[in-house]
């Protein structure tokens, strides 16, 4: 059996905070703190969490837009740190992205055709006829008409733009696509179109997704595995069905109870968390969730829990094992 296509071990990102005239480093934002995960070929890892939990920073590290402070990333078993320039470029080609805002992710001054083939033209020297052929195939793949290629982005609606962004991400036939909130800026009636398209493309092309969203139902719907993050830490990681049907970590439970129902008769235990997410500048000691946790134990404020196996998933909580 083939191993994971992408693997992260103890990935950490600290941002220095500079203040004062001499720009002395006075603090660090612990955006992502020692997280590990892996994505299998053709599968989807969903990452959920609220703002400031580090999910976007994680995406940026995977996309090499941010240099990790420490930790290891392996691509198809090879350590990225030890890769030379050529293989690194191969990694770049294999990992593409679709972002949240379809209005910001397409250059308004370029024609749609050039936008879609830009990664292709940048990385491979192809004859223009071949580029055109691939362009048409990509447009067909995402369900856009041929003539779209000669238009500018402003002539498209949000949903169509997201299709363009997906076509662009697919142009290099990548192994992994990072999807950072790909539907949350879209109209409700369009979201299902895009989610279905993404699922169809995965089935057809065998591409892996790193799916980042705050919409739990969408993540549960799209993912094979779910990682729940809180203040830079993964608090629960496991099979999508297992985690979403019976969450174990108190934060995951609160998050799922806060998710909006799809039917008025759907009643969940209402767990209303007190307070707001603390600043990652000064995360709480011990378990970072303990000041808001309804089940906090004395040791939670001093001892940091590690991810341990519990009922078929990994949970970082002192409540387990029972």
């Amino acid at each position, binding site marked *: 059996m083939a191993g994971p296509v992408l693997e992260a071990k103890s990935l950490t990102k600290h941002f220095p905070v500079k203040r004062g005239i001499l720009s002395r480093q006075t603090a660090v934002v612990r955006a992502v703190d020692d997280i590990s995960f892996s994505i299998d070929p053709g599968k989807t890892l969903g990452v959920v969490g609220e703002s400031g939990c580090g999910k976007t920073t994680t995406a940026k590290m995977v*996309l*090499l*837009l941010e240099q990790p402070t420490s930790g290891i990333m392996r691509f198809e078993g090879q350590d990225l740190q030890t890769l030379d320039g050529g293989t690194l*470029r191969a990694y*770049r*080609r294999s*990992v*593409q*992205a679709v*972002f*949240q*805002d379809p209005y*910001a*992710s*397409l*250059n*308004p*001054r*370029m024609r749609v055709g050039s*936008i879609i083939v*830009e*990664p292709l033209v*940048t*990385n491979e020297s192809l004859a223009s006829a071949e580029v055109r052929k691939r362009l048409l195939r990509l447009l067909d793949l995402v369900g856009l008409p041929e003539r779209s290629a000669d238009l500018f982005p402003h002539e498209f609606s949000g949903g169509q733009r997201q299709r363009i*962004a997906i076509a*662009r991400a697919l142009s*290099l036939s990548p192994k992994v696509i990072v999807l950072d909130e790909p539907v949350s800026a879209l109209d409700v009636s369009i979201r299902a179109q895009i989610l279905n398209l993404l699922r169809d493309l995965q089935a057809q092309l065998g591409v892996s997704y790193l799916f980042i969203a705050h919409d739990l139902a969408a993540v549960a719907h799209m993912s094979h595995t779910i990682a729940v993050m809180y203040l830079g830490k993964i608090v629960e990681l496991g099979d999508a069905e297992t985690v979403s049907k019976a969450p174990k970590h108190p934060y995951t439970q609160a998050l799922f109870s806060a998710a909006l129902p799809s039917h008025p008769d759907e009643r969940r235990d209402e767990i209303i968390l007190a307070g707001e997410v603390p600043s990652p500048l000064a995360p709480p000691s011990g378990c970072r969730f303990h000041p808001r946790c309804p089940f906090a134990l004395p040791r939670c404020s001093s001892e940091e829990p590690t991810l341990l196996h519990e009922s078929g998933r990994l949970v970082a909580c002192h409540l387990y094992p029972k």
Partner: protein
Amino acid sequence: MNGTTANSRFASTVLALPSRLAFLRAEGFPLIPSLILLTIMLVAIFAPVLAPHNPEVGVLGDRFRPPAWQTNGTADHFLGTDHLGRDVLSRLIFGARISVVVGLMVIIVAGAIGTALGIISGYLGRWVDQAIMRITDAWLAMPALMLAIFLAAIVGPGVSNIIIILAAVWWTRYARVIRGEVLSVRERDFVRLAVVAGCSKWTIMRKHILPNVINSAIVLATLQLGQVIIAEAGLSFLGVGVPPPLPAWGLMLADGKKGLMAGYWWLTVLPGSCIMLMVLSANLLGDWLRVKFDPQLRQL
């Protein structure tokens, strides 16, 4: 067969023409100011043909002659003569050349330098940005006009000097504004995606940043055109700009002072009106472009 294709191509070109020129009928297009600017340009180009007299040579016997419609005015000097008997109309016509050349050259040179520095500073960030912006700040801390006076005082007057001086002073505004624009464009996702696609910094600046800030540069240039013309007139008026006997409008105003207390209004009113007309037209056009291109630039 060929004929019909050619015909249809011709037809489609002709049919496309109205849509190409549709902006002329767009809401609020400043048609009259644009025509005025166009006329001034044409006058500047065809000055030797249009001017009835040599602008730099006067007849002393014809000093301070009023415009044709006043008593003592002659049809030969339709807009009168100055203190050296030079024809005011001819000087105004040739003066347009200086304003147009200085104005355009300054905004082009300053715009190119400032836009380039603004893009580099804004996109590369870090110490490059710090260095460029500190220099820009210090440069901005010196009032434009005074710096120009200082430079003019040490290098001496002359048309090319005045262009260099004003460009040296004016690039800072482009650098500031364009850098600000770049900072916001840089944070847009398409720039991040270009990095993910493997584009080089140079490609990103050229293909992704520049086309998205060029409109601001054009708007700024149009709005600065008027200010540059006023600055050039002011420097010439002070005697540190265009050297006499060249017929610059600012210089004409300085000469006009000699007849001011005697009430020779045409020497003061006419060159100033030319400056105002040109600057006003440029401002109106610039305002329209600003609103059309980007409502966020309202505070330029």
